[in-house]
């Protein structure tokens, strides 16, 4: 997860940067040694030595044609329950089996087959994806001396390939040359690290000549390098070419899955192919996650297994006793001919072998179809999530996607959300909004934060005058500016009007700095004729757009120059200016500034600098402070409005001054040794002095649509939101305010590091801060007081150490909002783990970039934003949405539904199997524990698969306790999930008890009614088949009525499945009874001839059904009337249409149903109301 380092290692525009092209001397000695054994014969792929290297075929499938069956079967029987059923199926082939083999094997085959089919289908999709990749075409140098097209899978180690613009690299390549003379090429690594900016790569000087197809006929070389490894940012190796050895470093390596951009073509030698390539070495399967509900389900299965074991033991014991004492006198069983199983002489052996029989017979306690039903249900639920039009982003056309279906119900139990900021809460789009030039502020558009604040104030206060109009006018304007990255509005500057300003010279300088001081690359958009910019950061991009809009269009960059077209000049004609780049001193997080030194067309050398205001202000000359005061004031305003600011400055250089400095700089640059960096730093520092402040920029980090509202709803639903961002503290706080995570009057607990060198001292200091914070919270008397914890990455590093982390967590959970800034990707993951393990609650991590991958994988649920940045986060996630605001619906609606559905479904499953399975056990006591089943084999076979499966699945897929609108209106209903009201042991045991009761009622009603007397007017008595069929009818009815009582939402689907299941039983009986008696046995014609004409059969069915459901009905009726849960009340209100008739009550209920929350809009409003009331009280 150390992808944050990429900025430091892979930089673009290496040519004029000082921190690059360092020779990687360190690795040289080890080449050839262990771990560095790879030898590549360039352009000689046929050399035998290269044979052992892997081909370029990639396969991400889990199975192949031959391994599918064994591997998939192994996976299936990894589950205890399935293994048990496999054992049963095998045992069913022996005489010990109480059932015919088919009735044991068929359901297992069905269940396992279905799961395997699902696996197979998923793998097939992966296979097709691989095939598409493997059959992509690339130009490869062939023996005839030309370049011919080959599929990727045929590319071998040592091949020379030619990759053209916008193509992906087929393997890891050594860059030999590009269409540029100096061998530079630009690469987009979005698929690797999620960064959208381009990175420059540069070929070795020695191979620059190989820039035409014909040059490769005689090209030979040997690359010796490291073995395949997953490190994306290192490479150790050397190239033997024309008798010399050259060291290769990562800047010459083009990685598979990255894309060639802004470069016509490159030549490269294949080093790592297929699974040896770095990206493939890096790919880890995201850890498989299981939901809490499912984990708990395993425990229930264990409980049931124990019950199974106990009743099997009782049964075996009973059997052994019967065999010992009764069997000898049962002459009608011919005990003297009995085999070992029934032999009265060996009751122990009989008992033991009966154990097997019993375990099979009572196997119906374990719901065989549970896993497969849940799997099917979850896939359908996931389809609903994918289909939900209210989570479909019309702008991008991306719907929400459940990438794994096994966490649906976990969505309903989330307690803490850990969110990334950039790209998640904000768009990662910077809009140039305001600026201050020569002490005069420009720009009238309000920022979104201001807008949101205004909107809130308008909401807070009932007077709707000014503010509302402001809001409305802003809204209109927002539509006016379609230019991405530019939301600036000021007639004084636009359309060349700046020429009329008194400070026109400064304004021009300002724009020049914007247009020249950067490292971006222009790209002509052929449709619009405009230039777009590939910039390192969105800030930089917005500056260039701003410069363009103000009339300074940066349109070309060569290796040594930047070209700017000036649209508005004194003469009225556009002119193109060339700025020769002399040096670039790059932006680093430590330097916090960037400088270019250029020579303009008049030969004047200029130093142009932009950077953090505090840094720039320290470096101003005396004269340069002319506008300092005004600018500082403006910067403060911008900061309060939540804008990101930079200060711009410049300096004119004399030729001699520059030359002197440059010599020193070059010396530092070419020096080798540990102090090289320091020397460069010093040199840069020497130059960036005595600056003249020109102005400052203010850029808005745009909030995503609907984010504050969404956070408000989530807070009302009782969710906690932590923001983990790589940004600096000020920005994070700005966004915190914008999102209502922070508000006025909230007590901010900032934990910062003291900056002391001594580690121990720092730690103690932080510990003290944490303890103080806790004290403060403890001593707070005001129940409405809210605290916010803000901590930065460096401090977090200490706070996450083992001895401190629990204390830190203790403080964090006490705070209403937590913001961690400047955190590394690894820390994000660590914080997530801390919350997950420390609180034991369900966590959800949401993020969009490669730096969020760790957090997404670590959290119980990972949500990826499928937006602008790469697919890394989405690939690692369990769910993806295209906008943060869809999280509300995903959790509050789908999560809530899925949780309840799955919980009820599992409970019902156990209920039905207990109710059914135990009747088999009771019957044993009446058969001398012989293992005779009261039901026909076919009844049992159909029980799980046909007769009871569809209603429970329709419960699992379609049940809605309250409609989606109500879910959103009453977010507090969501709390039923995190509190786990529907899957706690109380409820589970309740359902099991209900099952037990049901089994007792059905069994005893049946055996007492169908006792020895005639059950029909024609005098026939009931035999085994009659009793079994009647009892089974009662079970089918009771279980299906029970599920109808459980449901609260009946569409035609529920009606059909429940009605259909009952009907299916009678239809089956008719068909089965019509078959030849050789198949149906005693069930031949049973319904038509024996049961249907007997009133007692129907009466028993009615009696048993009502008797079974009556206790449950009384229970739910009581609960609803006297201990109602949230959803009961809402259902009732909706039912009486009170929401329409009694608005007042509706609002009252709504506000009651809100969770006590301290963050979000609503909390802000409440705080405001309290404030106003307090004021009023004082006045009185």
């Amino acid at each position, binding site marked *: 997860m150390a992808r944050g380092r990429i900025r430091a290692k892979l930089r673009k525009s290496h040519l004029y940067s000082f921190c690059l092209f360092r020779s990687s001397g360190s690795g040289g000695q080890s080449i050839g040694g262990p771990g560095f054994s790879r030898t590549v014969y360039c352009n000689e792929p046929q050399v035998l030595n290269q044979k052992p290297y892997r081909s370029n075929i990639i396969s991400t499938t889990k199975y192949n044609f031959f391994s599918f069956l064994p591997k998939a079967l192994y996976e299936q029987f990894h589950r205890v329950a399935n293994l048990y059923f496999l054992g049963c199926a095998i045992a069913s082939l022996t005489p010990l089996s109480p059932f015919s083999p088919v009735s044991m094997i068929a359901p297992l085959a069905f269940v396992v087959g279905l799961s395997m089919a699902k696996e197979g289908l998923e793998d097939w999709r992966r296979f097709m994806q691989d095939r598409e990749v493997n059959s992509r075409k690339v130009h490869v140098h062939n023996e005839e001396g030309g370049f011919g097209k080959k599929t990727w899978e045929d590319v071998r180690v040592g091949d020379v390939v030619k990759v053209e613009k916008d193509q992906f690299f087929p393997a890891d390549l050594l860059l030999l040359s590009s269409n540029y003379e100096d061998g530079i090429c630009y690469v987009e690594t979005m698929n690797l690290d999620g960064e959208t900016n381009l990175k420059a790569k540069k070929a070795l000087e020695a191979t620059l000549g190989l820039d035409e197809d014909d040059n490769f006929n005689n090209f030979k070389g040997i690359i010796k390098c490291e073995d395949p490894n997953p490190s994306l940012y290192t490479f150790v190796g050397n190239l033997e070419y024309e008798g010399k050895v050259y060291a290769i470093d990562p800047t010459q390596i083009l990685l598979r899955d990255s894309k060639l951009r802004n470069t016509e073509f490159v030549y490269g030698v294949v080093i790592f192919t297929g699974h040896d390539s770095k990206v493939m070495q890096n790919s880890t399967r995201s850890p498989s996650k299981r939901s809490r509900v499912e984990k708990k389900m395993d425990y229930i299965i264990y409980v049931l297994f124990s019950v199974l074991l106990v009743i099997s033991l009782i049964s075996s014991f009973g059997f052994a006793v019967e065999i010992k004492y009764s069997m000898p006198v049962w002459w009608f069983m011919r005990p003297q001919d009995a085999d070992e199983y029934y032999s009265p002489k060996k009751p122990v052996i009989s008992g033991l072998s009966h154990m097997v029989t019993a375990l099979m017979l009572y196997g119906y306690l374990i719901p065989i179809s549970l896993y497969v039903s849940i799997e099917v249900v979850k896939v359908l639920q996931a389809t609903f999530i994918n289909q939900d039009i209210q989570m479909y982003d019309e702008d991008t056309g991306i719907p929400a996607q459940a990438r794994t279906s096994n966490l649906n119900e976990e969505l309903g139990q989330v307690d803490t959300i850990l969110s990334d900021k950039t790209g998640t809460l904000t768009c990662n789009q910077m809009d140039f909004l305001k600026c201050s030039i020569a002490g005069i502020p420009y720009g009238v558009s309000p920022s979104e934060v201001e807008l949101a604040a205004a909107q809130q104030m308008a909401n807070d206060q009932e007077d709707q005058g000014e503010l509302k109009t402001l809001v409305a006018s802003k809204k209109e304007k927002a539509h006016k500016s379609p230019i991405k990255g530019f939301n600036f509005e000021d007639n004084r500057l636009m359309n060349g009007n700046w020429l009329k300003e008194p400070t026109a010279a400064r304004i021009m300088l300002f724009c020049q700095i914007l247009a020249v001081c950067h490292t971006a690359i222009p790209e002509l958009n052929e449709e619009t004729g405009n230039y777009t910019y590939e910039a390192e950061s969105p800030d930089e991009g917005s500056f260039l757009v701003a410069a363009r809009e103000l009339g300074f269009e940066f349109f070309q960059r060569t290796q040594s120059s930047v070209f700017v077209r000036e649209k508005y000049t004194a003469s009225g004609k556009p002119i193109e200016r060339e700025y020769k780049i002399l040096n670039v001193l790059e932006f680093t997080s430590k330097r916090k500034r960037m400088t270019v030194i250029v020579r303009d067309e008049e030969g004047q050398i200029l130093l142009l600098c932009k950077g953090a205001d505090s840094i720039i202000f320290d470096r101003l000359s005396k004269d340069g402070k002319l506008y300092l005061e005004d600018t500082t004031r403006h910067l403060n305003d911008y900061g309060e409005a939540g804008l990101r600011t930079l200060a711009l400055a410049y300096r004119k250089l004399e030729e001699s001054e520059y030359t002197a400095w440059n010599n020193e700089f070059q010396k530092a640059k070419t020096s080798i040794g540990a102090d090289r960096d320091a020397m460069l730093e010093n040199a840069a520092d020497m130059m960036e002095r005595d600056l003249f402040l020109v102005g400052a920029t203010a850029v808005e980090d745009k909030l995503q649509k609907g984010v504050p509202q969404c956070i408000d709803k989530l807070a009302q639903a009782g969710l906690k939101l932590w923001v983990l961002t790589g940004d600096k503290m000020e920005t994070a706080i700005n966004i915190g305010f914008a999102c209502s995570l922070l508000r006025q009057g909230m007590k901010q607990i900032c934990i910062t590091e003291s900056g002391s060198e001594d580690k121990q001292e720092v730690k103690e200091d932080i510990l003290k801060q944490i303890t103080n914070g806790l004290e403060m919270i403890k001593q707070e008397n005001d129940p409405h007081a809210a605290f916010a914890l803000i901590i930065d990455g460096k401090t977090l590093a200490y706070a996450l150490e083992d001895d401190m982390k629990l204390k830190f967590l203790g403080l964090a959970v006490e705070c209403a909002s937590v913001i961690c800034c400047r955190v590394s990707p690894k820390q994000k993951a660590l914080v997530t783990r801390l919350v997950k393990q420390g609180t034991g609650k369900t966590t959800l991590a949401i993020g969009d970039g490669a730096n969020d991958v760790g957090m997404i994988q670590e959290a119980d649920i990972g949500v990826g934003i499928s937006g602008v940045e790469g697919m890394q986060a989405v690939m690692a996630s369990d769910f993806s949405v295209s906008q943060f605001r869809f999280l509300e619906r995903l959790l509050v609606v789908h999560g809530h539904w899925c949780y309840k559905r799955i919980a009820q479904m599992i409970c019902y499953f156990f209920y039905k199997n207990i109710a059914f399975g135990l009747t088999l056990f009771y019957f044993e006591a009446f*058969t001398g524990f012989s293992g*005779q089943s009261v039901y026909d084999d076919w009844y049992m076979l159909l029980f799980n698969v046909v007769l009871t499966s569809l209603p429970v699945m329709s419960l699992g897929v379609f049940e809605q306790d309250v409609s989606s609108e109500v879910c959103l209106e009453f977010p507090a209903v969501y709390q039923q999930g995190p509190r786990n009201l529907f899957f706690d042991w109380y409820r589970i045991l309740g359902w099991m008890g209900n099952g037990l009761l049901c089994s007792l009622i059905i069994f005893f009603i049946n055996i007492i009614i169908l006792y020895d*007397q005639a059950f029909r007017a024609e005098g*026939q008595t009931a035999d085994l088949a009659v009793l079994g069929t009647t009892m089974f009818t009662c079970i089918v009815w009771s279980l299906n009525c029970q599920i109808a009582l459980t449901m609260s939402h009946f569409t035609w689907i529920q009606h059909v499945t429940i009605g259909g299941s009952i009907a299916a039983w009678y239809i089956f009986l008719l068909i089965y009874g019509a078959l030849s008696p050789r198949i149906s046995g005693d069930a031949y014609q049973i319904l038509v001839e024996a049961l249907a004409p007997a009133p007692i059969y129907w009466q028993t069915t009615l009696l048993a059904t*009502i008797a079974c459901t009556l206790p449950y009905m009384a229970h739910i009726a009581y609960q609803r009337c006297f201990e109602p849960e949230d959803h009961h009340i809402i259902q009732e209100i909706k039912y009486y249409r009170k929401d329409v008739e009694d608005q007042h009550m509706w609002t009252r209920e709504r506000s009651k149903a809100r969770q006590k929350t301290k963050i979000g809009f609503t909390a802000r409003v409440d705080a405001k109301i309290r404030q106003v009331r307090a004021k009023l009280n004082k006045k009185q």
Partner: protein
Amino acid sequence: MTDTDRGTQRDRHSAFSLFTQQSLPACKPVLTPEWVIMTFLFIGFIFIPVGLVTLRASHSVVEIVERYDIGCVPEPFRIDKVSYIQDDSIPKNCSLSFKVPKYMKAPIYIYYQLDNYYQNHRRYVKSRSDKQLLHGQNEHGISSCQPVEVNNDRPIIPCGLIAWSLFNDTFTFIRNRAELKVNRKNIAWKSDRGHKFGKNVYPFNFQNGTLIGGGKLNPTIPLSDQEDLIVWMRTSALPSFRKLYGRIEKDLDVDDVVVVHLMNNYNTYSFGGKKKLVLSTTSWLGGKNDFLGLAYVFIGSSSVTIAVVFTLLHLLSPRH
């Protein structure tokens, strides 16, 4: 949001999207107190009358049960009943008489009842071959009949423990010195006679072994007409069971004295099983069983009770 809302509105018309958006029209019954009380009352008002009618039907049935297994063993043999029953040389006839307590309307069904007889034991239940019963001579497919499948290397028809242990006590009834005619036809299920027991299958090699189980069969009568066997082959569900023996198609008056001459052949003494003779009329419901009616009344009245309790609770502490 407004855009998506509009999109939803547009699509709301198609049934498929109603499905995918999970907004199919649905009825959402809510158990409001009114509904609860009504439902319970309704159950009560259905169940109590049904229960009473059922009880009446059950009470209308006249049933006479006479145990004869001990009474039919002569006094000297009572110490060792098993050797008595197994000794073929001792004549097994016996008679008993009883007085009819109530007017019994024809048809009067005659049952024999066995107790503590595990006809539902797995070893026993499995030991038959439906294939053989229907199609007869077949060397294969009778392995299920273990341990009574072959004798002297020839298959037994009908094979299996069930047939082998056929009940063989016989009864004749005399009233006022005149024999009461017992109709022993049509005592088995019609489908059994027609489709399960072959018309061309005759008993063969039956009860020929060293161990004789129960009754013998007339080898000249096809299985489909051996109704005693057919009834016996319907294994009972519980260890205490009655099986139909025949019908008396004349009414019996109060205080009629019926004398039964019976052949006490069947051995239940080994395992202490009782043997009873049962004469019973039937109602529309079948034989005498008060439980069904009582259960209906019980459920019905509990339901009414619950309804009353709910009403009271609701009146005492109304909600909202």
